[in-house]
């Protein structure tokens, strides 16, 4: 398995990369959508600007056209055929004085205009059959003006066309001009010829009949369109109130070649297209910049995240390191886990606690092992030293026969005791190794028990203790008599050994269906409750002392009893009260033979 540090770092970095990627993608999409929006607005703006410019230009041109038409209208008013007028004056009116030159102010008498229509018309038709301009003034007035073409028509069929019109002419729908309006103009695009399309303004002017009016009175209306005339003071009325007055009007048309305007518009369009291209490239540049910025931010964030991740993983693994160090300090001499609960997080506490418990158990096991070694050493070395010392003493100088005899007897007794201890140790070693098999045979347990009692009677008598056997006779069973005898002898020996003077020891046997209950009861010193569980431990003695007064017991007897009882599958129970006595109860799962026979019908 890979290291936690590596896995955590990889996972964290992957997560970081994933979230950074996701966030960047979303940010990029949103930003690019915004930029797209901006681009489209910019495009629309360019388009609007273009339209505005076109409209402004159109308006400007229209205004110029109108202004020119007005200029023409003023100019044309001063040009009448005095020759014809003089004829009228002579023949019809005789009222007007005739100047000598051919160009003069039209002094149309008011009354004449209030006369019949046909007369007025006739008057004008005759007086001004043609329209003329002073070429010098015309040039001065029209220089730099928009209109390339102009045409002047009158209600009385007099007309004038600019040279540029050549054979072409611009038709007027007179009906669209209201007769009552003094000034009225209309804009219109028209096809002048097949190849020439123009925009014209048609201006109807009747002002000159009322006397000179400053040209500035003409409104400069940007909003062009038909019927945008300005109502001036109402026309004169005759006596009966009928509007029968003749309005001698002239219609002035000015026009310019639309191709010129279109060329301008085209330049505007080009400008617009350039702008749009600029916007597009700007958009692209912005997007690229944003991408670069995102990449830089991502890189920085990733690096910072990597650093933080490294630090976090270190922080997270620090307690583990602490534990590792503490564990690595453990050796066969020091079983302490050198770490406090406060230093560890919740997650590691169970490990540390479990480890501590295990180490404690190990420590205890080692201590037991050491204790056992010390015990064995003591149990074997002490009698050995005693023998050595006795023999050395015997050999030190010449002694009497009696002295030698006593010393040799002492050595022999010591040897005998050592032999017993060695045998017990070997028994336990065989039990541990599983090398002591059960040797079952048929025997009479009552007989065996009474044998054991007899065997221990001398010891009991020497201590003034009464040893009694109570039990049914003929308890024939199939079991291992050797091990049972060892158990009984050991328990009886203990019961006698740890008894008060003139105490009692009872050995009771009773049969139950399928098992035999053996009880060994004494009214001796008893066992403390806290020590009851430990009496079966090897070398354990209730009194930490070891009395060698009766060196037949070195604390192994009960360990052997327990081992044998387990081997026989027998239950072993102790009930005891300090100062009152103890009862050792063995529940041997061995049916009486006669019962067993009965069970199988023999």
């Amino acid at each position, binding site marked *: 398995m890979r290291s936690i540090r590596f896995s955590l770092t990889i996972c964290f970095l992957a997560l970081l990369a994933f979230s950074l990627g996701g966030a960047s993608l979303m940010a990029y999409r949103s930003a690019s959508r915004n930029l797209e929006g901006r681009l489209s607005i910019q495009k629309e703006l360019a388009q609007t600007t273009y339209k505005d410019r076109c409209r402004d230009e159109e308006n400007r041109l229209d205004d110029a056209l109108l202004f020119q038409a007005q200029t023409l209208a003023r100019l044309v008013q001063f040009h009448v055929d005095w020759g014809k007028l003089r004829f009228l004056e002579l023949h019809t009116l005789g009222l007007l004085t005739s100047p000598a030159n051919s160009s003069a102010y039209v002094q149309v008498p008011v009354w004449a205009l209030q006369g019949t229509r046909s007369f007025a018309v006739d008057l004008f038709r005759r007086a001004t059959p043609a329209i003329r301009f002073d070429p010098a003034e015309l040039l001065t007035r029209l220089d730099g003006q928009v209109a390339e073409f102009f045409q002047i028509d009158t209600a009385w069929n007099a007309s004038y066309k600019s040279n540029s019109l050549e054979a072409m002419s611009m038709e007027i729908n007179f009906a669209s001009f209201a007769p009552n309006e003094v000034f009225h103009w209309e804009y219109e695009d028209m096809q002048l010829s097949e190849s020439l399309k123009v925009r014209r303004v048609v201006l109807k002017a009747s002002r000159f009949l009322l006397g000179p009016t400053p040209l500035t009175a003409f409104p400069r209306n940007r909003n062009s369109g038909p019927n945008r005339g300005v109502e001036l003071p109402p026309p004169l009325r005759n006596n009966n109130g009928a509007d029968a007055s003749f309005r001698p009007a002239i219609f002035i048309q000015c026009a310019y070649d639309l191709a010129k305007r279109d060329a301008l518009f085209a330049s505007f369009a080009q400008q617009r297209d350039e702008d749009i291209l600029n916007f597009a490239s700007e958009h692209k540049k912005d997007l690229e910049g944003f991408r670069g910025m995102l990449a830089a931010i991502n890189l920085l964030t990733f690096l910072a995240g990597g650093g933080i991740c490294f630090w976090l993983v270190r922080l997270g693994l620090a307690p583990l390191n602490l534990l590792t160090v503490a564990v690595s300090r453990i050796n066969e001499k020091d079983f302490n886990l050198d770490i406090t609960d406060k230093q560890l997080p919740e997650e590691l506490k169970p490990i540390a606690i479990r480890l501590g418990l295990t180490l404690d158990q190990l420590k205890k096991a080692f201590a037991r092992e050491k204790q056992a070694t*010390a015990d064995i050493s003591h149990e074997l070395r002490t009698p*050995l030293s005693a023998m*050595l*010392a*006795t023999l050395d003493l015997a050999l030190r*100088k010449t002694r009497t026969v009696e002295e030698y005899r006593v010393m040799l007897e002492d050595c022999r007794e010591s040897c005998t005791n050592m032999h017993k201890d060695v045998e017990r140790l070997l028994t336990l070693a065989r039990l541990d190794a599983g090398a002591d098999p059960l040797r079952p045979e048929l025997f009479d347990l009552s007989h065996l028990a009474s044998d054991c009692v007899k065997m221990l009677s001398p010891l009991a008598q020497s201590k003034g203790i009464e040893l009694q056997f109570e039990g049914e006779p003929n308890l024939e069973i199939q079991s291992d008599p050797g091990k049972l005898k060892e158990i009984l002898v050991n328990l009886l020996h203990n019961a006698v050994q740890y008894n008060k003077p003139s105490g009692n020891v009872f050995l009771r046997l009773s049969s139950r269906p399928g098992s035999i209950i053996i009880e060994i009861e004494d009214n001796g010193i008893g066992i403390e409750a806290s020590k009851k569980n430990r009496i079966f431990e090897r070398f354990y003695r209730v009194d930490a*002392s070891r*009395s060698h007064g009766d060196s037949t017991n070195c604390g192994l007897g009960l360990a052997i009893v327990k081992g044998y009882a387990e081997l026989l599958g027998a239950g072993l129970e102790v009930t005891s009260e300090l100062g009152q006595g103890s009862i050792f109860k063995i529940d041997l799962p061995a049916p009486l033979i006669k019962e067993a026979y009965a069970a199988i019908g023999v």
Partner: protein
Amino acid sequence: MKILLVEDHKLLSRSLKQALEEDGFAVDLAVAGDEADAKARGAIYDVVILDLMLPKIDGLTLLKGWRKDGFTFHVLILTAMGTLEDKVLGLNLGADDYLPKPFELTEFLARVRALVRRGHQAKDPILRIHDLEIDTGARSVRRAGKDIYLTPREFSLLRFLCYHRGKVVTRSMVWEHLYDENDDNTSNVVDVYIRYLRNKIDKNFTPPLILTRWGEGYMIKGD
């Protein structure tokens, strides 16, 4: 020279007691820890021989208690636990020597003698006074080149007097140091043994070495 032997193995303690007594030491026995504690605190001993695994109170606890309470007698630990740690622990707790079981009797006795010498600030195992030589190791006595045979009691009395040469030794000092708990305290037993000693050491030699301080006790001549 009185020794307390604390050992719970009957045969071992009997043999050691006999060997020490044959060497001229008075020996008291203790079998259990509490008994040993009472005796060590109640009498004057030159050396305490201490087994560690004892009934009731273990040896190391006893030793710690004695050293804490200011008892200065020498302690020889005699135990079946002979690992390095056990030795170091025992010595660190105030023992003067450590002898693991099993051991040779001669080594044991030599160590006990060495501890006694150390108790009297004597390095030389042979005590020399005038023309008297006492070999405490070989337990032999010579005066003017002639071997003198002394019983263990006589030897231990002479040795005691020599260790206190030039100083008055009272009868009760002799009693406390040379007689064990089982001896009958009869007032003139010290005087009797002084007479025996004089007969063997001073009778045929001059000058007399054992002097009597009337009303106080006895003294062996200093140099």
